């Protein structure tokens, strides 16, 4: 099976400055990899490279079998990114935001209700414009959009930010389910006590490079054989 992420000495620039300075990383389908490191270590840049939003200027870079240097459009259709800023339109309701995300990916909207239920967005919350939701509720809506789209690679940048304890537990369960379904998950975190227990591997980044790798805390029993029902466009 081809790796979900395969980077070899990948270099990326943010403007004129190096964001990634020769990164080696391989993530298999069903893997959960947590990126840790200080501010400016390159975690967000690495996630944006994997999403096809930041161009790789040299090195080898493949995501979901597509070359990031020649076929970024195909990569974008198949990954899901939860960045620092959520991708919600303030005037649209929670349900409309999720529906737009699903329909824009060319998928039927029949997964929307289930995804909103899964994230606890029920009743009045669904009909509330996103601009009136709290930061944590907006994060849940953005996660619901990912659940409904079922991308083959989840890229989560500081996903715990703004979430309460219940939502953090829910996030951990979602990540485990996603990996069990065969999708790969790469997430960055400044809260190792929350992220490391979810991980198969912990990758320490510094200065735009990958340093050491450590085993994560995910229980072996949770590493089920991937069922392969993640969406593949």
């Amino acid at each position, binding site marked *: 099976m081809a790796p979900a992420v395969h980077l070899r000495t990948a270099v990326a620039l943010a403007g004129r400055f190096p964001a990634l300075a020769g990164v080696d990383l391989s993530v298999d389908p069903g893997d959960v990899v947590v990126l840790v490191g200080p501010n400016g270590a390159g975690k967000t840049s690495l996630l944006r490279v994997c999403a096809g939003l930041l161009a790789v200027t040299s090195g080898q870079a493949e995501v979901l079998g597509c070359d990031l240097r020649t076929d970024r459009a195909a990569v974008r259709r198949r990954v899901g990114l939860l*960045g620092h800023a959520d991708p919600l339109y303030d005037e649209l309701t929670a349900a409309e935001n999720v529906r737009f995300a699903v329909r824009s990916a060319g998928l039927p909207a029949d997964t929307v209700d289930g995804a909103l239920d899964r994230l606890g967005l029920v009743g009045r919350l669904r009909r509330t414009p996103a601009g009136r939701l709290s930061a944590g509720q907006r994060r849940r809506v953005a996660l619901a959009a990912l659940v409904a789209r079922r991308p083959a690679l989840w890229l989560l940048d500081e996903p715990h930010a703004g979430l309460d304890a219940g939502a953090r537990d829910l996030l951990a369960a979602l990540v485990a389910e996603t990996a069990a379904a065969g999708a790969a998950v790469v997430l960055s975190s400044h809260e190792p006590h929350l992220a490391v227990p979810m991980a198969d591997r912990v990758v320490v980044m510094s200065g735009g490079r990958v340093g050491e790798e450590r085993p994560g805390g995910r229980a072996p029993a949770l590493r089920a054989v991937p069922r392969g029902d993640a969406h593949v466009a």
Partner: protein
Amino acid sequence: MWRDAVLVAGKDLRIEARSRVALWQILPFAALSLVLFAFALGPGPRVLRQAAPGLFWLAVLFSTVLATQRSFAIESGEGTRDGLRLSGIDPAGVFMGKAAAVAVQLALLQVVLYAGMILLFGVHVRVVWLAVVASLLATVGLAAAGVIYGALSAGLRVRETLLPLLVLPVVAPVLLAGSRAWAAAITGPVSAGLPWLRILGAFAVVYVVLGVVLYGPLQEAA
């Protein structure tokens, strides 16, 4: 591309319907422009009637800049901008959808401005089809050109001030051709308006094709 265009246009129009920026800001601005130009020209009804087509299209042009700015303000945040790029929507579909949403707003604006022209200047269109065709072609051209230059300036800090500088000179042919076609529709003869329709049509086709081809690279650059 068409499915994507419908999706994007529906999203933009729904957002506009709820935020009511077009209703409470762009429409009053256009109406105010019409009134202020009329003040500047003085109370003579003959002068006002002669100038009415030009004033009408000048107000539409200024409103195009505002409508375009608003269209890109919807995705001014990093999250929504990245979300649209990651959505899988064909960039040509984004262009067509955004241009269609701007065009719908401009068309509604023109209906209100025409009513204002009747009230303020006592001007009536005699050849309705000529005015309608001229408006449709001009609206498509204005919306397409506006969205192209909106995308070009979207990622820049100076986008609010840069956009009028980019758009207004480029859409000057629409001001000229739209005014002449409407003058022919108001005072006749019809034959005087036909060459201007061809210019409006060519402008619309050129900018729609340019938008379909260029929007992807422009979206990346932003």
